[in-house]
């Protein structure tokens, strides 16, 4: 029996790795921060919990990381899910109304009691996630069984989702004051609590895709739908599951986001985050055409985006200019990925690899 060949730790094996470019992009941004922003790397220890700019990157990046996990799988099948931002809003509204249903009776009164909730926490989270699962299921039905183009199919929920979220809360913003719910986005156990959520979802997804055959089937469907069909892979079911899962990830992200801002603001929660999630996956090196994917690289991709934002804030770029500046940096990062710069890196690494035939 042959063992999988051990990868020798050569310069080439490093540059060919999927993680190389995302990590390179991330380190370039951090290097910039190291040089130009004093104190960016300092980490404070307050009562056992860690704080600092780096921690902020992780904490603020957690919603996009959650979205990117689901989005990676969707993109690997050759699709895309534009509705994740709207699903975040739906999940947030559902959770909000279950904790503070006063909006339903048009009674605008402010609950200030941090121990008050209409339903227990597990029902709040459970129902919110179930609703986002239904949203994902809807997308999956349209793409998998109705054979509608993913961009068109998910556009429907992207547009209508915020309306649905508003319907759920009767058009009001629901204030969230219930203390235990706050932990999701604001809790801190040495590291921000949201990071543990990301870690759990990531680990679960990694195990599901790499320790079962699902990951291979997803890639196979993304690379060659017809061959996969001929080989007996139920490509419709794969797509259904992937979009459903993406919906659940968006739901979790919505809960974290709403807990963070203490309100279910259906107009603003998750606004344009679908694009950040797609971008994170692309920076992670998964092709938009589908195929091979790396969850870890997508996580790094999400951190790249967040690091850019954080650095811009730190050097004092005003919020309104942020998007423009971010765009420039993203273009630079994508250029780094181009075939030209890849071949440049390859040429750079060539002499060392030629020594070994």
């Amino acid at each position, binding site marked *: *029996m042959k063992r*999988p*060949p051990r990868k020798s730790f050569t310069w080439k094996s490093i540059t060919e790795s999927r993680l190389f470019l995302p990590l390179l992009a991330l380190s370039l941004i951090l290097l910039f921060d190291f040089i130009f922003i004093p104190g960016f790397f300092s980490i404070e220890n307050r009562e056992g919990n860690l704080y600092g700019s780096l921690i902020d990157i992780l904490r603020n990046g957690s919603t996009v990381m959650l979205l990117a996990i689901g989005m990676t799988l969707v993109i690997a099948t050759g699709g895309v899910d534009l509705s994740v931002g709207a699903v975040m809003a739906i999940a947030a509204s559902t959770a909000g109304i279950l904790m503070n249903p006063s909006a339903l009776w048009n009674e605008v009164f402010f609950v200030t009691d941090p121990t008050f909730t209409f339903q227990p926490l597990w029902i709040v989270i459970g129902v919110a996630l179930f609703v986002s699962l239904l949203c994902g299921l809807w997308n999956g039905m349209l793409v998998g069984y109705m054979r509608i183009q993913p961009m068109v199919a998910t556009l429907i929920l992207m547009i209508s989702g915020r309306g649905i979220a508003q319907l759920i809360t009767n058009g009001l913003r629901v204030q969230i004051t219930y203390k235990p719910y706050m932990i999701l986005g604001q809790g801190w156990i040495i590291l921000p609590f949201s990071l543990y959520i990301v870690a759990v979802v990531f680990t679960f997804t990694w195990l599901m895709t790499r320790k079962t055959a*699902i990951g291979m*089937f997803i890639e196979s469907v993304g690379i060659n739908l*017809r061959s*996969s069909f001929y080989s007996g892979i*139920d490509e419709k079911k794969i797509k259904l599951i992937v979009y459903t899962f993406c919906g659940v990830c968006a739901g979790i992200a919505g809960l974290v986001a709403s807990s963070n801002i203490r309100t279910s603001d259906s107009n603003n929660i998750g606004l344009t985050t679908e694009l950040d999630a797609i971008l994170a996956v692309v920076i992670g090196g998964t092709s938009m055409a589908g195929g091979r994917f790396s969850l870890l690289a997508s996580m790094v991709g999400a951190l790249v985006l967040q690091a850019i934002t954080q650095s811009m804030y730190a050097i004092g770029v005003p919020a309104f200019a942020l998007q423009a500046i971010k765009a420039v940096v993203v273009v630079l990062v994508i250029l780094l990925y181009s075939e030209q710069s890849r071949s440049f890196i390859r040429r750079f690494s060539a002499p060392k690899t030629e020594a070994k035939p």
Partner: protein
Amino acid sequence: MADPDQSLLVMEGIRKAFPGVQALDDVSLDLRSGEILCLVGENGAGKSTLMKVLTGVDQPDAGRILLNGKEIHAKSPQHAQTLGISTVYQEINLCPNLSVAENILLGREPHKLGRVDWARMNALADQTLQRFLGIDIDVARSLGSYSVAIQQMVAIARALYITSAKILILDEPTSSLDAKETEQLFKVMTKLKNEGVGIIFITHFISQVFEISDRITVLRNGRLVGTFGTASISRVDLISKMIGRALAEFDEMTRIKLESGQHIKSEAFLQARQLGLTGAVQPFDLDLHAGEVVGLAGLLGSGRTETAGILFGVEKPDTGTLRINGKEVHDYSPLNSIKRGLALCPEDRKAAGIVDDLTVRENIILAIQANKGWFKYLSLQEQYELADAYINLLSIATPSPDQPVKNLSGGNQQKVILARWLATNPRVLILDEPTRGIDVGTKAEIQKLVLSLAEEGRACMFISSELEEVLRTSHRVVVLREREKVAEFAGEVDEKTIIHVIAGGEA
């Protein structure tokens, strides 16, 4: 050879090599004005390469092309068009959402005051269609609203309008047309012919060759077999010239075949009764017994692939019944077929076979894993064991099982797909053109493998364009012609009889 004074077009001594293949080897062709010349030959015979050389898509390595006695060098299809050589391809490359008139005059719209003169444009298009093709349709309607045959003719009209072409190349225009539409197209071709246009017509339908052509040029394996007057050649002769008869070593193969033939079970494992799908295959009866190799003979487009697809559940039949292992099949799908013990090596390796970015190992385990389901994931060790076993068994040339399959040569990719299906341990193995694009040595290996699989008690269906190969490996031969099962031969049968049937004679 052809007299250049009389000929509209002469191609002489054309050679063209692609990496690893001599696609054209000293091929000559001549075309007179006002005639329809059929270019025939099996896949890979060099028909399309020859036409690509003529229309400037590819440049020849040697040889010359004379148009009206003057040597020409077409640099691109556009250049060829200006010289008067137009091509209409099998897939219509027009815009279905534009009007017929727009399609015909695209890029040459008449203008008035800087704007498109629609009235004149429609009139021009109408004229072109009526004058050249004698058809009268509403040119303002979108092209997509017309039948494929009309679209085909609009494509011809466009070709004629642009260049007032002297030479028209029709590359399998009839493959998606039904009988009536074909007739319509033939009327147009005859009309053009009478106006002095030289037409080169490529088709796989032998009956159409005899219906429409004046002369026939036959290519085989990149060489010219000859040019024959249609009236002076019989169907049987033509087909045997297309297929060619290489007398190879029958010895061992025949012996294995005879021996394995004795173990054929009498009870049919797979039983199709009046199974058919409109537009794909006429209803047919077919039995496959354990231990038997059944060959499927017929020309390309005769419904071989469709037959295989229906048996494997790629497409749902709309008539008839299929029984596998005694049980009637209702849920047609590849996965269910795999579960019933079927396997299909598809004809189109690139589009329906390999998953090119996945590794050799992953490609091999794909079908067996799909059958096992998502959660019974083979451990890495089992995966490597399977992959190594089949890499050895089929001597797949790959540096490692972790090589992406796209880096392998075509023959090795084919073996990987074969390995994928053998790994599922199928009771019925359907092989659609398993030896296409594979060198001779590997071909013989695969043929022997098929026979040994039958000897193990599996039923095999062997589909190939090479008749000789079908005969050598099969215990029984089923012949398809123009999407219909026309005959079935058991036991020894000679090639001539089958060619005769393929050509349309009685069995």
